[in-house]
């Protein structure tokens, strides 16, 4: 196969090749090689090279701009190029602002500080135990248990006041580093024996920080203590650098911090995979089912099959938090299904997979088909395959797909999946946990559609029930998620955070409704959001989104009918709404026209549609039973 293969180039050759491509103006190929270089070499030196090249390529690439501020009590400067290189690799053009050294308190408290002037999308509060709780870090042995308690209370109080002050001045996301334990406790092994030990005191602070974050929207904890522990407390620090330049960690650990920050940037910017597509032979199990047979493949709880078992466990963990699994394998269907259904070592069952392509077609084509079947874009797919040639083919044919780099030794497969930032999530809604079951019902529904004669009969046979409710505390997370993640049936594609929605709804004349849809195959969960705004006798639809799960089943008409009734009840004469086209929202393009709206105004961004409420009704389809609930406010 002729591939744009550069796998044989070493780091120095890659750099030269990148500069050659850039001189020739081949931006896209240069950016592919920059990604390859970054995958090969995560050092400060390479990061600086990558950042400087991306800064030149930036205008030619489709990158997402994002602004990050770091409030810190230590030197973070050398981490920034690593973070920016990793961000470019993920398609994010990150601008970073650093507070003055140890000036995090002033920056937060002063409304005119450079922090707020910078208008960040996200702020990291990176402070250390030794700076914010020096008595617990260094002088612990001097304290009695009352003093330990009061120190802990003071520290949590400080954080609480920083968070409140920050929230009063900024809507940005806030990520708080929690406090690390000292490598060796002040009182040695005695620390494990006493109720008020140093470790316990710091753990208690961390638990209270977590509660503090959970009370608020858009505030999250970065478990810095676990990060340090994961890489080894004994090897984390470099005391010489701390004493001379206030850099606490050793050079080899800088990238661990950058990677941990990136794990937050992925879900914050929507650079996440909704589905992971896996290969079978030598990926889900060891060996080739078509040759080795059921008894010959390696899979189980003992060596060497345990490595594949571990990978299946990691995939199952993703499934439990709402990431769909799919199969793409070159195999005979019967051989593969036999193993999937009946091999005793299989942790994953056929019902865990939302789509399967087991055939001899090339993988790029199969991936496109899977995306289409699941109603998601190819950029929402991650691909997992032990074969570097298949990975390379996918990279070159469908570059939007996120290809997970697997090590050659299957021992590392599970960890490669667990450490991939595209599976990170900051919140988990009820829908996320039920998504696998929802897609199973979706497949059943499609089968029904093929057996029912007319379209109306199909709608009737679905027995759809819609429940419409105003915004509640419980639905806020899901509502914000729908506005930020829905691409297809989304009339204006306005992205809102939880914080922004709460604020909008508390302003007069603005309402937010959600719709939940159930049918004979199951509960689809909360699948749609409408945000409306009244101005005089007009009601404008600011946002109307519907999950792709229910598109094309007339739920959108039922929802619009409710919105029209609501507008009429509040005295509106006219209902309007913009359609703002994007590359992905074609399914919503004809929505207003097909419901008798007329175009009123057109600008470079889209078309404003209007409906005269006194003349044209929007009737709810007879086959959707609608219930309207009251909210909790």
């Amino acid at each position: 196969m002729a591939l744009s293969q550069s796998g044989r180039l070493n780091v120095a050759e890659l750099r030269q090749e990148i500069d050659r491509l850039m001189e020739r103006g081949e931006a896209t190929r240069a950016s592919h090689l920059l990604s390859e270089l970054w995958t090969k070499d995560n050092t400060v030196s390479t990061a600086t090279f990558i950042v400087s090249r991306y800064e030149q390529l930036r205008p030619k690439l489709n990158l997402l701009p994002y602004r990050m501020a770091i409030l810190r009590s230590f030197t973070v400067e050398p981490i920034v190029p690593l973070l920016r290189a990793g961000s470019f690799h993920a398609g994010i053009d990150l601008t970073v602002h650093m507070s003055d050294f140890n000036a995090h308190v002033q920056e937060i408290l002063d409304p005119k500080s450079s922090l707020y002037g910078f208008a960040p999308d996200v702020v990291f509060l990176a402070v250390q135990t030794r700076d914010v709780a020096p008595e617990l870090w260094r002088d612990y042995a001097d304290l009695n248990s009352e003093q330990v308690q009061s120190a802990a209370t003071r520290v949590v109080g400080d954080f609480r006041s920083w968070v409140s002050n920050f929230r009063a001045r900024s809507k940005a996301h806030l990520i708080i580093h929690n406090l690390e334990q000292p490598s060796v406790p002040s009182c040695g092994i005695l620390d494990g024996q006493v109720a008020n030990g140093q470790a316990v005191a710091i753990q208690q602070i961390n638990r209270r920080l977590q509660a503090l974050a959970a009370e608020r929207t858009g505030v999250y904890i970065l478990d810095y203590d676990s990060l340090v522990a994961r890489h080894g407390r004994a090897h984390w620090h470099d005391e010489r650098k701390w004493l001379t330049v206030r850099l606490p960690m050793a050079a080899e650990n800088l990238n661990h911090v950058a990677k941990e920050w990136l794990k937050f940037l992925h879900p914050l910017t929507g650079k996440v995979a909704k589905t992971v597509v896996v290969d079978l032979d030598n990926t889900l199990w060891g060996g080739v089912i078509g040759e080795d047979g059921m008894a010959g493949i390696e899979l189980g709880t003992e060596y060497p099959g345990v490595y594949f078992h571990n990978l299946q466990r990691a995939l199952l963990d993703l499934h439990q938090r709402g990431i769909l699994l799919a199969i793409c394998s070159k195999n005979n269907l019967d051989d593969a299904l036999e193993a999937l259904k009946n091999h005793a070592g299989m942790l994953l069952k056929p019902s865990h997979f939302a789509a399967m392509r087991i055939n001899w077609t090339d993988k790029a084509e199969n991936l496109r088909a899977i995306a289409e079947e699941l109603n998601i874009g190819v950029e929402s797919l991650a691909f997992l395959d032990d074969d570097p040639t298949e990975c390379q083919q996918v990279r070159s044919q469908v570059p939007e797909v996120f290809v997970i780099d697997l090590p050659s030794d299957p021992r590392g497969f599970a960890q490669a999946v667990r450490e991939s930032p595209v599976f990170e999530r900051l919140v988990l809604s009820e829908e996320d946990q039920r998504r696998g079951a929802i897609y199973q019902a979706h497949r059943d529904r499609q089968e029904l559609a093929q057996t029912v004669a007319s379209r109306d009969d199909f709608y009737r046979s679905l027995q759809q029930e819609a429940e419409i409710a105003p915004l509640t505390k419980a639905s806020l997370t899901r509502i914000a998620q729908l506005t930020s993640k829905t691409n297809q049936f989304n009339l204006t594609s306005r992205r809102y955070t939880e914080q922004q929605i709460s604020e909008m709804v508390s302003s007069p004349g603005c309402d937010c409704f959600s719709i939940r849809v159930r049918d004979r195959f199951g509960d689809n969960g909360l699948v749609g959001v409408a945000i409306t705004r009244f101005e005089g006798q007009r009601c404008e639809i600011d946002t109307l989104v519907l999950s792709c799960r229910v598109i094309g089943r007339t739920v959108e008409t039922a929802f619009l009918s409710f919105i029209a009734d609501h507008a009429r009840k509040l005295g509106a004469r006219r209902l309007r709404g913009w359609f703002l086209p994007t590359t992905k929202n074609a399914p919503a393009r004809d929505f207003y026209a097909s419901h008798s709206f007329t175009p009123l105004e057109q600008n470079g961004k889209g078309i404003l549609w209007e409906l005269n409420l006194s003349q044209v009704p929007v009737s709810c389809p007879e086959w959707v039973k609608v219930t309207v609930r009251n909210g909790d406010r």
Partner: protein
Amino acid sequence: MTSPLFERVRGIAENVLKLPGSQITAQSSPETIASWDSVQHLNLILALEQEFGCQFEPEEIDQMNSIDRIHSVVQNKLNHGS
């Protein structure tokens, strides 16, 4: 003065200081190169530590104020370590 080790040091300096290698000589120092400020100096030290898998002592970092001196500190470190 173009040993393989010197070239490795120069290559790292070239990346970190964002200069073409031809502009970096043994005599280059923070006084002769505008982009070589304290932050870039720290980045340079860290990049060298990553490249050579070592950690420099504060006294060594103090001495590393030109490409030539960096080269000899690194050379000592590597000889001493092996």
